[in-house]
C-alpha cells in the first residue's frame, strides 16, 4: 500500500514567497527522511514553495481564471509530502507519528489510489492516464 503523508504547516498559507524552513528544522527533517530511507519504505518526497509564490486556477463556468497567491480564503495549505510504501494504514500512522513536527504542524495521512482500485468502466475511461504519468515522470 502506498500512502501520502501530507504536511500542513499552519501559517504557511500566508507566508512570504521566499520563506524557507530554518536550518535546525531542516537538519531534524533530514534525519527523519533518512530513517524512512533506511527502513526501505520511502518512495518519494518533496517540499513546496509557499502559496504566495503560486497561483490558483479556478474554473467557474468552465472558464479558467488565474488568481495569484496568497489566497485569503485558504485556512490551511500543503507544505510538502512523503510517499511511502507500507503494509498497513497503521504502519503509515506509526511513521507519521515519528515526524519531527512543531505545535503548528499537522500531517494528513492518505492512501494513494491504485489503478486496480477503480471499477473496470473507470479503468477504461482512465486509459492513458498512466501514460500521462509516464510523460511527466520520465
Amino acid at each position: 500500500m502506498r500512502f501520502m503523508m501530507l504536511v500542513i504547516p499552519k501559517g504557511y498559507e500566508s507566508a512570504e514567497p521566499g520563506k524557507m524552513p530554518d536550518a535546525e528544522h531542516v537538519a531534524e527533517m533530514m534525519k527523519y527522511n533518512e530513517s524512512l530511507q533506511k527502513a526501505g519504505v520511502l518512495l518519494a518526497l518533496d517540499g513546496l514553495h509557499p502559496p504566495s509564490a503560486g497561483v490558483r486556477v479556478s474554473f467557474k463556468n468552465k472558464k479558467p481564471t488565474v488568481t495569484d497567491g496568497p489566497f485569503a480564503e485558504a485556512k490551511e495549505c500543503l507544505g510538502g509530502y512523503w510517499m511511502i510504501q507500507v503494509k498497513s494504514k497503521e504502519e503509515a500512522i506509526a511513521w507519521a507519528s515519528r515526524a519531527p513536527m512543531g505545535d503548528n504542524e499537522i500531517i494528513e495521512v492518505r492512501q494513494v489510489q491504485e489503478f486496480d482500485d477503480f471499477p473496470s468502466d473507470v479503468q477504461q475511461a482512465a486509459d492513458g492516464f498512466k501514460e500521462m504519468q509516464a510523460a511527466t515522470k520520465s
Partner: protein
Amino acid sequence: MNDIQRAIDAVWRIESAKIIATVARMVREVGLAEELAQDALVAALERWPQTGIPTKPGAWLTTVAKHSAIDHLRRRKLLERKHEELGRELEAELETAASFADAMNQDEDIDDDLLRLLFVACHPILSPEARVALTLRLLGGLTTDEIARAFLISEATVAQRIVRAKRTLAEAKVPFEVPRAEERTERLASVLAVLYLIFNEGYAATAGESWMRPSLCEEALRLGRMLAELAPQEAEVHGLVALMEIQASRLRARSGPDGEPILLLEQDRSRWDYLLIGRGLSALKRAEGLADQGSYTLQAAIAACHARARTAQETDWKLIVGLYDALLRQTQSPIVELNRAVAVSMADGHAAGLALADALTENEILRNYHLLPCVRGDLLLKLGRQAEARAEFERAAALTRNLREQALMLKRAKACS
C-alpha cells in the same frame, strides 16, 4: 485484531529488526536475540492496551529486550561459575561485557548490527528455504503464519524451518559479524540471492492466487532498499535493487484480466509504474558508478533498455545484445544464451536468432526447458515455417508444468496452419 493490536503490529514491523539486531550484539546469538525481542513484544501486548502506546515505542521495546538480555547474561555467568569454568571463559566474558556496554551506549551502531543480522540470516550453512524464512522473520518482521501463506506451505513447516535454522546457527557458533575480504563477496552474493529468491517467489505467481505473494515482491524490494543504505559501496546491491524496481514496475501489466501472462513486448506500457522505473534507473546509475559490477547490474541494464523504450518498437536491441554478451562472459548460462538469441533475432533478423537457438538444442541443461522450443517456434513462425513452428509449440506445451503457459502454447500451436 483490535486497533491497539494493529498499532502494536505496525510498531513491531518497523522496530523488530533493529531490536533483534541490538540484542544479538549483546548475546551474540541471533536465535536467542529473536526470542528476547519476542518477549518484549509480549510485554507490550500486555501493557500497552492499558497504558496506551508510549511516545517512543521502539525505545520502550528495545529497553525491555535489553533488560532481558542482561538477565540472561547474568544467569549464564552464574551457571558458568557453578560449572567452575571461570578460568578459560574469563576472557570471553570480558569481551561480552565490553560489547554489552557499548550496546547500551551506541545506538548509531544499529546499521552495522542490521547488516550483521542480514548476513547471519543468509548464512550459507543454512538451506536456501531456511535463509528465506529466517530473513523474512528477522528482518521483515513477518509472522510464521504470514510466511506460510506467502509460500503456500503449512505454518508448522515454516516454524520448524526457523527453529532448525536458529539451532544450526547456534551449534555452528556462527559469529555475529559481517565477514571481511573474500568471504564478504561470497556471503554478500548469498544475501542478494536470498532477496532475489523472495522477490521471484512473489513475481512468479499470477495475480489473485494469494494476496501475500505480490507482497513478497514488495518485501524483497524494501529489504533491498534497506541494504542499499547499509552497504552503499556495493555495486551489485544497487544492481539488484534496480532490477527489482524495474521488474516490479511491470507487475500490473504482465497479466491479463483472467490472469493469463502477457509477454514483455505485448504489454500495455501505459500500465507500467513509472515511479518505480524512475527509482530503478537511478539505482542502476548508482551501480554503474561503482566498481565490481556483476550479473545483477547487467540484468538491470537490460531491464532498463526495455523500461526506457516508450514502445516495443523503440527498443535498442543492439545495446541489449551487447549487454547479453557481457552477461554471458560472467555467467556462461545457456538460459542467458537463449535470451541473447531472442535479442539477436530482434537486432539482426529472425534467421540469425534461430541459428543461435538451434545451436542450443544440443545443450543438456536446456533439454527439458520449455522456453527453448517456445523461442524456436516463435522464430520459425516469423520465418514462415508454419509446420515446424507448430511442432515446437506442441513440444513447449508438453514440457511446461504451468497450466496457463500450457494453454498459451497450445493456442499458438493451433494458430500455425
